[in-house]
């Protein structure tokens, strides 16, 4: 490693922050762009599983809350793509790569949403898993990204509240409504356990080394389990992993090892809803392409 890069490494590991115009090692820049781009893509793709339910939401309040949640996610995508654009990759290039399948987005958005129970589980637990990661990103060495994470984290907290409220209404409703939640949880548990990524040790994870991530994947997962397993169980819901338990001595959660090959397959576009969602995005984009031409026309 050359001196300049070594100094940069020590700087970020010491808590130093990097701004857009600062010099960055190529490796740092490349990984940074890829990571932030994946986050932007995830916010955008995350909209698709949920938006069908806006129409089907069973009360006016739920309809409004769900629309607002999805609106927040679109807003997050806007903020994050702006950060990527300032790093040199324009939004249109990101969207091209997204719809062509070249770029990745988080595993959880490759799965179908089958019932209103999914709406609750996603807003409550998927967003909870996301917020664990996002809080860690508040300390990202790349300052423009760290700064927007503040607004994102603040808005995500509303989503979790909304999600929990949906779940609570269902688990205190009819038996069928309770079952809706249990069944959704059964399907979403594996994607949730995959969410924080494979348990690579922090010092072997280049994202951590560069302090782009400030938390090891497994620590994030443990934090999620710590916070949410008790909350799930106290509602009388069963988590579909009989091996899941907290080791009293170490305080760490033990669980059935997730299938990491399956995670890899999902994020490379082979999830149950990946192709359909990308096709939908591609089509929507084509249909509105003319709008961009019109709005960019010079005013008379």
């Amino acid at each position: 490693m050359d001196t300049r890069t070594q100094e940069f490494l020590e700087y970020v590991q010491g808590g130093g922050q990097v701004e857009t115009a600062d010099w960055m090692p190529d490796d740092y820049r490349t990984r940074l762009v890829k990571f932030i781009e994946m986050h932007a893509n995830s916010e955008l793709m995350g909209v698709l599983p949920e938006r069908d339910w806006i129409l089907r939401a069973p009360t006016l309040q739920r309809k409004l809350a769900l629309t607002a949640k999805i609106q927040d996610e679109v807003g997050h995508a806007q903020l994050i793509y702006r950060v990527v654009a300032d790093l040199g990759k324009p939004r249109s290039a990101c969207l091209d790569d997204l719809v062509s399948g070249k770029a990745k987005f988080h595993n959880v958005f490759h799965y179908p949403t089958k019932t209103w129970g999914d709406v609750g589980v996603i807003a409550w637990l998927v967003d909870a898993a996301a917020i664990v990661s996002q809080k860690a990103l508040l300390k990202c060495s790349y300052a423009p990204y760290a700064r927007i994470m503040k607004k994102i984290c603040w808005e995500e907290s509303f989503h979790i509240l909304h999600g929990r409220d949906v779940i609570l209404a269902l688990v205190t409703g009819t038996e069928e409504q309770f079952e809706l939640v249990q069944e959704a949880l059964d399907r979403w548990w594996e994607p949730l356990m995959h969410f924080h990524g494979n348990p690579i040790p922090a010092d072997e994870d280049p994202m951590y080394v560069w302090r782009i991530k400030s938390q090891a994947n497994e620590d994030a997962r443990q934090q999620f389990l710590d916070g949410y397993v008790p909350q799930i169980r106290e509602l009388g819901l069963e988590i579909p992993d009989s091996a899941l338990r907290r080791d009293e001595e170490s305080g760490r959660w033990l669980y059935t090892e997730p299938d990491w090959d399956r995670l890899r397959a999902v994020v490379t576009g082979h999830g149950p809803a990946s192709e359909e969602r990308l096709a939908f995005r591609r089509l929507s984009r084509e249909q509105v392409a003319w709008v961009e031409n019109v709005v960019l026309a010079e005013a008379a």
Partner: protein
Amino acid sequence: MQERSKADLLLELADDELFLGWRNSEWTGIAPFLEEDVAFSSIAQNEIGHARALYELAARELDTTADALAFDRQPEEYRCAPLVELRRLEWARTIARHWLYETADEIRLAALKASDDPEIAGIASKIDREETYHRLHAEMWVERLLVSEDGRARLNEAVEELWPYALGVLDDELRPELRSRIEGRLGRSLPEVEPVPRGRHEAELAELWQEMTVVRRSAPTGAQW
């Protein structure tokens, strides 16, 4: 103004706002670009918010709840104008409908703000204040579309298609005002057409209603959500 009970008037307004809000919320996540997506979603939410406030007033008249009025009627019992029922997930038509509706609504609300009934006058004022921003947004898009040949052609085509429906939003005596404003802005005259009035519904409404009530109907009436 056409004779109708207070409850019926409120339901007309509420149903218009509810279905238009729904149609507009269909763009959430897939609008032409992200900034517009966020802005348009707020407009859709405002509309549903208006619907809710109107349903709450109607619910007091009819001794029921806002949600029951919004969801638990049969399709033929809704009083919305056909304009808001159309599924037009195409941007030029969406903007045209948005602009036509907001203009018609402004005319309608002006009349209602002068109502003897303080509740009607009050809610009309509140809605009108919020819709100032909707009108600004619609006007901004209309201006942008009219600036280019392509945009102008698309907007005009969309307005012509939706024109009979737009007229149907308003009572007879308010229609000339709508025509005058739209023609004035476009700088051209629109054809004489049969307005598509309230009272008959587009086929799309029944489809929409099926999907919008599918979750709600899966539990007994009165179930909590």
